[in-house]
């Protein structure tokens, strides 16, 4: 049992309190999930527990014995050396030597842990079989795909059966299939008397764990079984079926009702969470505007719904971004973004082979696929960041290759990584973007002021954007992308690493602008986010493997009664692998 008592960590230089007097208890032989937004303090806590970071105050006890956190070498305490004998720790960046091969990495970590001879041989056989890396032993770690690196990192951590296994976001940026493998590996460790500390941003992953600790801004906001959290929202989750094209408007209307905490688009349906108020009341108010709606049916809540409930729901329920677009509606039903036989080769390797699709006015189009499938390459060709070998990419009917700067005014782009100027303040970044999109004088000032108001940036407007939390950065990036009211938005993994509430607010904004005729092309690893799409393609090994609405994709899944998009995703990819063999090439 690990007891954390009044632990506080302040980073004086950065003026950040990463952990604010937190206490929690972690029972032995369980998988414990640390969840919460970026900057919540998960990594800080795990590093302190791994004995490689000194807290400001507080104590930690392992099986009743205090941990020598401050290196005072008090009698009866567990020293850093003793702690490191009993734990295995996998940091966010895996800790692999990229210029060493798989077997060399394993050998090094075995030697560091003092495993030799027969025991080492046996341990290698075991972890290599479990990770399915036997056939690639001589391959350099740097040439492995993201998922394989993760497995190797885990294998290095599991060489000596640790008493405590600490995994810091082992599944960040990893596709659903690799994530499944990882969970299976860790689960197989459980009967071996190991306590696993697992931090993650994926709430669906956390739902599978025995015990979760939900952190926010350095504090523990929920501690317990995911099931017990879900129980609290049981009976408050409803589904409006077959809403189809009016799903976004229905969702917006639902949010206006005082009893509704959250509303989510799930393919053609709309799901909503109430505060326990009368659901018929909600139905009646929405039915006034959409008479064809059928009665809502009770729906099974998931852990994410419970978290939204615990965190107190969204701070505002109607997106002001929609109002910003009001008056500049884009009408029509034409195709605004087109990929025509797009092909991209890197040397001998075909990253994208003959991909074609179209995105209509006022729709959200999703690009899905595992890591290295070619979806990012496709995305980059579409917005003109990468030049294709064959084929054409068109935006608003104009070939992106010959696109002048006038036509580029039609595009808003949000990059995967924060790509604004870290040394400029929030306001200066907005002013720069406004200038870049040719807003001047009064209209520039107006647009900047509106963005600050809409995205609640008042308090941070004079702070350098580089030091903002990820949530703020993400809002600022969106503000810079939409302030010139472009009819087409390109979003590249816009929500990765962002907390659930900010993600929900983000999608509320996106859905709101789409009702004004904006078209959106988005890539994501979150399957629940992909449910917002009207149309999507699943790209794997450079080819389109499935195309259609979220429900079309789900119907392709034969293994499950009520398949989720994730089930469908996994099955489609596995079917391709069954025919073509699982690719282990790493793509950059």
């Amino acid at each position, binding site marked *: 049992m690990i007891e954390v008592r009044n632990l506080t960590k302040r980073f004086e230089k950065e003026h950040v309190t990463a952990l604010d007097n937190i206490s929690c208890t972690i029972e032995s032989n369980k998988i414990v999930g640390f969840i919460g937004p970026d900057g919540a303090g998960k990594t800080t806590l795990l590093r302190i527990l791994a004995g490689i970071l000194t807290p400001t105050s507080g104590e930690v006890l392992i099986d009743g014995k205090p941990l020598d956190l401050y290196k005072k070498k008090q009698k009866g305490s567990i020293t850093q050396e003793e702690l*490191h004998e009993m734990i295995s*720790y996998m940091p966010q960046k895996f*800790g*692999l030597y990229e210029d060493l091969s798989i077997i060399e990495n394993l050998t*090094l970590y075995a*030697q560091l842990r003092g495993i030799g001879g027969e025991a080492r041989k046996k341990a290698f056989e075991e972890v290599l079989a479990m990770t399915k890396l036997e056939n690639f032993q001589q391959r350099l770690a740097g040439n492995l795909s993201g998922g394989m690196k993760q497995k190797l990192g885990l294998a290095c951590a599991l060489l000596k059966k640790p008493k405590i296994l600490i995994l810091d976001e082992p599944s960040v940026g990893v596709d659903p299939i690799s994530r499944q493998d990882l969970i299976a590996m860790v689960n197989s460790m459980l009967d071996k008397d190991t306590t696993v500390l697992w931090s993650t941003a994926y709430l669906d992953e956390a739902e599978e764990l025995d015990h979760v600790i939900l952190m926010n801004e350095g504090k523990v906001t929920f501690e317990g079984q995911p099931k017990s959290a879900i129980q609290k929202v049981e009976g408050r989750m409803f589904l409006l079926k077959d809403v189809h094209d009016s799903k976004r408007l229905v969702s917006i209307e639902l949010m206006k009702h005082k009893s509704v905490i959250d509303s989510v688009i799930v393919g053609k349906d709309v799901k909503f969470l109430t505060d326990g108020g009368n659901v018929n009341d909600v139905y009646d108010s929405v039915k006034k505007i959409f008479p064809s709606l059928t009665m809502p049916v009770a729906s099974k809540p998931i852990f994410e719904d419970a978290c939204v409930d615990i965190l107190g729901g969204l701070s505002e329920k109607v997106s002001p971004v929609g109002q910003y677009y009001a008056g500049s509606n884009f009408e029509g039903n034409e195709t605004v973004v087109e990929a025509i036989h797009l092909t991209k080769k890197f040397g001998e390797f075909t990253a994208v082979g003959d991909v074609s699709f179209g995105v209509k006015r006022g729709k959200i189009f999703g690009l899905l696929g595992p890591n290295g499938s070619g979806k990012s390459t496709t995305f980059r060709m579409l917005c003109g960041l990468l030049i294709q070998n064959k084929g054409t990419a068109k935006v608003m009917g104009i070939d992106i290759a010959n696109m002048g700067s006038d036509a580029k005014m039609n595009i808003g782009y949000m990059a995967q990584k924060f790509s604004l100027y870290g040394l400029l303040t929030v306001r200066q970044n907005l002013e720069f973007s406004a200038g870049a999109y040719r807003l001047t004088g009064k209209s520039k000032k107006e647009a900047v002021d509106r963005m600050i108001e809409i995205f609640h940036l008042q308090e941070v407007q004079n702070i350098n954007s580089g030091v903002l939390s990820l949530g703020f950065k993400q809002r600022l990036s969106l503000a810079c992308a939409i302030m010139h009211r472009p009819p087409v938005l390109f979003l590249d993994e816009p929500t990765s690493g962002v907390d659930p509430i900010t993600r929900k607010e983000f999608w509320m904004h996106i859905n709101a602008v789409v009702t004004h005729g904006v078209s959106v092309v988005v890539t994501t690893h979150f399957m629940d986010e992909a449910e917002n799409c009207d149309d999507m393609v699943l790209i794997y090994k450079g080819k389109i493997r499935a195309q259609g609405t979220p429900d079309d994709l789900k119907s392709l899944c034969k293994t499950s009664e009520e398949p989720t998009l994730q089930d469908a995703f996994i099955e489609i990819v596995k079917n391709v692998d069954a025919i073509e063999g699982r690719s282990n090439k790493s793509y950059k």
Partner: protein
Amino acid sequence: MNLKTVKALVLKETKQITRDISSILVAFIIPVLMLIIFGYGLSFDIKHIRIDLVQQDSGRIAEDLVDLYVHSEYFSTNVVRSTQEAKGHMESGRSMGTVIIPEGFSKKVERGEKAEIQVVSDGTDPNTAAYIESYAMGVFNKYIASRSTSNTKGVNIINRLWFNPTTESINFLMAGTLTMVLAIVGTFLTALVVAKEWERGTMESMIATPVSINEIIFSKMIPYFFLCVFSLAFALTYGKLSFNIPLEGSFLALGLVSSIFIVVSLLIGLIVSTSAKDQFVAAMGAVTLTFLPTMMLSGFIFEIKSMPVWLQCLSYVFPAKYFVSSLRTICMVGDIWEIILRDAVIMGIMAFGLFLKLRSILRKDIE
């Protein structure tokens, strides 16, 4: 300290060095490049400087003197008629200086009067200007001196060439060049590799294992120590073969001071990268702490005695000064143990201090 762990880490480090083409390049190509640059490019030796000679006197003695200038190996002399023409050449950069033999020069010499020539040099490059001045005067004085044995007397002779008899500055520069090589291989490369481990998160992973601080320090130092030794040996051999650099002293003395200096360089590299944990900052730190002081304050190129006092004091802080001094002694003079031991002891004390410093900042802590 567990020797098995150190062995495992040393082995890993060695594999990384041999697989990374850039560390091989730094260790073996940079020494050659530096020797070539300093051997041919940055030469202090004056040879064939372009000057103009304005001959206003046509007497026999003036003709003799002109002859001397034209045949001097220090100058490539162009005889012109007017100062106007010479001035034009200097302005356009075609010549670096002008020697004027005034009218009546020959007569004055014949009469035993004090004869003068005028030397004008391009002050934009004070170094060369100074050389032109002294060499031009040197030629003149030499001539006067040769005459003085017959019928002239009382002429001052200053033979500048005496101070650099071989006229090969590479011998002089060699010590500094080798110091710079070690600064790059020892400090710069080590600083980069450790910072890389922090950046890639491998250090975070390593310090969470039962490995100890001493094991980490020694496993980083051993392979890079040998890399430095190989690099130094390679550079010395190359210098011997291409520039015939002398080695008057013994290998024992050379090995002693080199080993201590290498350890000092490695420790500086480790300290820099432990404090920076960022490859870019570590690289900048390594250059500022080793490369630049070696260049500026070790007496390698710039004479320390002509610096302001406070800068002279500062030069004592940098270990490069002691290595340059003892290396120069070993190469050009021989085993003068007074100098060698003094330098070795000072560098040894520095190494010990640096080790303690490293021990205190490199903890198994991420912050």
